[in-house]
């Protein structure tokens, strides 16, 4: 780190610089002593930033034990401005956090909170907002907490715009409304909430590779409160509320509610809070970064935390690195670096696709790619199907593994399997007990009055909402959801069929197109109906697959009869669409009276079998759930396409028709089913 001024220089008359302390986003800070021997901190603000000094001058005469005192503002011979401040010798909250990668003892959290609240409420009481709270700005000097950089935020925002030098550190604590230029005191409440979360869990709620990604998460993502003890979730959720009008309004209230919640937990104050909700033994083993392109979230951070605590080398790194950066610095097993690197590249690509490409563009690109694939026959060619089947096998294995991992890590109290219904495999699935609002956790004794909402705070509701989240729908609501989705499905099926008809050479005649749209629509309707019936309820996967298989038999029979009725099969001039020269794995069982193929064309039984297996192979209800991770996921549809090809290969059934149908059904089900964006899920009152 290079600094402008060396030891023993005297840029300001009366002050001798002894050493540099640090470089912030906007200037350098030095330790200096006056001629009489008083130690001060000197903050150099470069003139070329055209800074406005009003903010600091406003705070020049504020006196509070929990605020770093500003003594004076001086100008040197170069016309640079210096802020003369109280020197605070102790460690910063940032340093303290580095020492507790798994979360601080609660007593320490309360100490920091008390000091910060006192200083901030003094500021707010004078109509001032700090705006740039972060652990590096909070100090503890001889047990007294001091909030630093008071009045400097104006500088910081100015310099941020002019120079891209700010560290990502600031962004972790920035309230969402700051992006819209709104700076109420709720901004400080939010930052304080983030710091409370970090002090308790050892990590910030929103991590990311870039400032943009983190800001986006502040705006849209819900914090994962599962790491916190149940009693504390409501108050942190209220402090991290996206909408400043709905957030806790002042720091005093936040402190009061936090203390009440701590009292309600009856946790020992000498230990970190997360110690109780997540025993170290249950933390996942350290996994290399490549293991979770998407699992960069809690799993990765926790694993890194364990690694950091476990090895001295990693502990040394943790002194200087934030968890997010740490993920890339913890040395993995030898030979992992290539995998890690490719994992990172892949992760970055996924992240780019998910965050930086606008949704309509994503849909259009996806549609175009699929059309090109189908048209060229690439997707339905035997090679592609072979690859697809291989990938499907790998993917299923992978998702099984990920699920096991997430269950281990969440300490799912159930082996009944309700947590396994994860659509987005990496999402945290709230367990049954917790989502029913009990202060759960088998390791913790049940406090008195458990299960009753605490006075003054709303009952806790899950904040990471997935298809596994239990919800209460009335029958009318279910009907409404189903009919809306089914109505929309008609339109979507029409569009999809039109795309296949005009975009590819799979459907050659209008009759085939009519058949295709009817089969797609019928399948989608049945799947949507079943999904909406099961939505928000608990249920065994196997049970649901069985029912879908039965439905598939019915749909297949109808589709087979329809094909015969339209003279597409079993007629003098059958359609080439339905012809297959594959004898399949099942094939004809003449002896058992099972006739699946009739001279290369599927019989009604063949249709029924195909649809039945297709319905069973995928967990279709997840594609229709209104809490699915995204309205439409291309990967889901491609898996459906491959599943279609696989089933067609097994039954046998015409491969191109089978896979295209599966793709179409998946697209129609996903696009048509009603969907709640993640940020609106909390406002539902169905939990």
């Amino acid at each position, binding site marked *: *780190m*290079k*600094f402008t001024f*060396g*030891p*023993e220089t005297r840029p300001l*008359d*009366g002050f*001798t610089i*002894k*050493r*540099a*302390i*640090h*470089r912030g986003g906007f200037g350098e800070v030095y*330790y200096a*002593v*006056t*001629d*009489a*021997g008083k*130690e001060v901190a000197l903050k150099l603000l470069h003139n070329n930033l055209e800074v406005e000094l009003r903010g600091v001058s406003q705070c020049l005469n504020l006196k509070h034990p929990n605020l770093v005192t500003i003594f004076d503002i001086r100008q040197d011979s170069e016309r640079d401005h210096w802020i003369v401040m109280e*020197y605070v*010798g102790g460690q910063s909250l940032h340093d303290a956090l580095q020492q507790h990668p798994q979360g601080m003892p609660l007593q320490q959290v309360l100490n920091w909170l008390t000091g910060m609240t006192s200083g901030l409420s003094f500021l707010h009481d004078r109509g001032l907002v700090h705006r740039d709270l972060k652990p590096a700005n909070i100090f503890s000097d*001889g*047990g007294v907490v001091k909030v630093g950089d008071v009045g400097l935020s104006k500088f910081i925002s100015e310099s941020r715009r002019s120079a891209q030098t700010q560290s990502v550190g600031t962004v972790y604590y920035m309230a969402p409304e700051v992006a819209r230029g709104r700076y109420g005191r709720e901004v400080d409440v939010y930052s304080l909430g983030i710091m409370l979360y970090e002090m308790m869990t050892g990590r910030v709620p929103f991590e990311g590779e870039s400032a943009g990604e983190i800001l986006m998460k502040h705006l849209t993502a819900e914090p994962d409160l599962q790491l916190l003890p149940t009693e504390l979730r409501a108050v942190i959720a209220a402090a991290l509320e996206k909408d400043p009008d709905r957030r806790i309004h002042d720091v005093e209230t936040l402190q009061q509610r936090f203390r009440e919640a701590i009292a309600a937990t009856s946790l020992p104050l000498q230990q970190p809070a997360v110690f109780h909700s997540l025993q170290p033994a249950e933390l996942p083993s350290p996994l290399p970064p490549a293991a979770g392109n998407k699992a960069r979230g809690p799993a990765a951070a926790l694993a890194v935390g364990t690694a950091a605590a476990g090895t*001295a080398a990693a*502990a*040394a790194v943790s*002194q*200087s690195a934030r968890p997010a950066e740490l993920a890339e610095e913890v040395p993995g097993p030898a030979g992992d670096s290539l995998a890690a690197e490719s994992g990172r590249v892949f992760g970055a690509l996924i992240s780019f696709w998910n965050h930086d490409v606008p949704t309509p563009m994503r849909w259009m690109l996806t549609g175009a790619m699929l059309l090109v694939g189908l048209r060229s026959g690439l997707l339905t060619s035997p090679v592609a199907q072979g690859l697809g089947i291989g990938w499907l096998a790998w993917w299923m294995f992978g998702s099984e593994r990920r699920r096991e991992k997430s269950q281990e890590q969440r300490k799912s109290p159930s082996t009944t399997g309700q947590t396994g219904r994860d659509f987005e495999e990496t999402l945290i699935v709230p367990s049954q007990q917790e989502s029913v609002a009990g202060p759960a956790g088998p390791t913790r004794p049940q406090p008195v009055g458990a299960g009753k909402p605490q006075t003054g705070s709303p009952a806790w509701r899950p904040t990471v909402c997935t298809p596994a989240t239990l919800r209460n729908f009335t029958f009318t609501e279910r009907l409404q959801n189903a009919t809306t989705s089914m109505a929309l499905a008609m339109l979507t099926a029409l569009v999809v069929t039109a795309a296949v008809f005009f975009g590819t050479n799979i459907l050659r005649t209008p009759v085939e197109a009519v058949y295709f749209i009817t089969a797609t629509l019928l399948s989608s309707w049945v799947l949507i109906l079943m999904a909406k019936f099961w939505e928000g309820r608990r249920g065994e996967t196997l049970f649901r697959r069985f029912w879908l298989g039965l439905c598939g038999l019915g749909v297949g029979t109808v589709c087979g009869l329809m094909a015969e009725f339209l003279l597409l099969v079993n007629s003098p001039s059958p359609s080439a669409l339905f012809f297959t020269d594959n004898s399949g794995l099942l094939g004809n069982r003449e002896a058992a009276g099972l006739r699946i193929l009739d001279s290369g064309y599927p019989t009604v039984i063949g249709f029924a079998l195909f649809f039945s297996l297709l319905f069973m192979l995928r967990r279709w209800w997840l594609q229709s759930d209104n809490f699915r991770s995204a309205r439409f996921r291309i990967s889901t549809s491609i898996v459906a396409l491959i599943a279609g090809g696989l089933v067609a290969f097994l039954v046998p059934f015409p491969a191109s028709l089978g896979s295209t149908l599966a793709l179409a059904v998946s697209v129609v089900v996903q696009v048509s089913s009603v969907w709640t964006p993640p940020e609106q899920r909390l406002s539902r009152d169905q939990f």
Partner: protein
Amino acid sequence: MPGQSLRSFRREIMTVPAASSDSFFLWIDAIGVWQVLCQNELLIGAAAAVDEVADIALLAPLSRRHARFIREEDAWFLLPLQACSVGGRLVTGKTLLRNGSELQLGDRVRLRFRIPSVLSATALLEFVSGHQPRLSLSGVLLMADTLLLGPRQDYHVCCPTWPDSVVLFRRQQQLFCRSKMSLTLSDSPLSEQQDLSAGAILCGPELRFRLEPGRTNSAV
């Protein structure tokens, strides 16, 4: 000039001229400041307005001669002159200090004694109770022969941002510096034979530190 008179005033009452290289301050940019004491016997006690006697002079309710740190070979001992306890136990005679020992002087002052590196007998005193000399210190180093500075936790001074380590070592009352990094002393490359006991500002890639001889943490 008023500033000038203040400085001379301060020098008169507070600064004790450095007799040799046996006491200096180590100022490290972005890290902190340590008082480095090289004697084999050191006095710790209360700071005094005139006639400072203690080598480690704390602003604390202590006697001016409260205890002595004594080094014999590679071991450090505490010789209490007033009420002292080590590891919670009141001690009356010379007591061996181990890595991690918590010392209490009088009723209030608590210090932690550490020997960070197994490679050297150099010890580190950390301020636990917040009682400090007149100017704030990050800690006090009781230097045996070597001082390791660098990015590792088990160095005497851990400088996480430094790319490599620096070794300060004493030979015949002189102080030298060695490093794999290319360090400069007033813009010219530093040689290992250069005696630094008169004070120096050393610069390297991403680092800068200063050795300031003196017993009292002087500002001038």
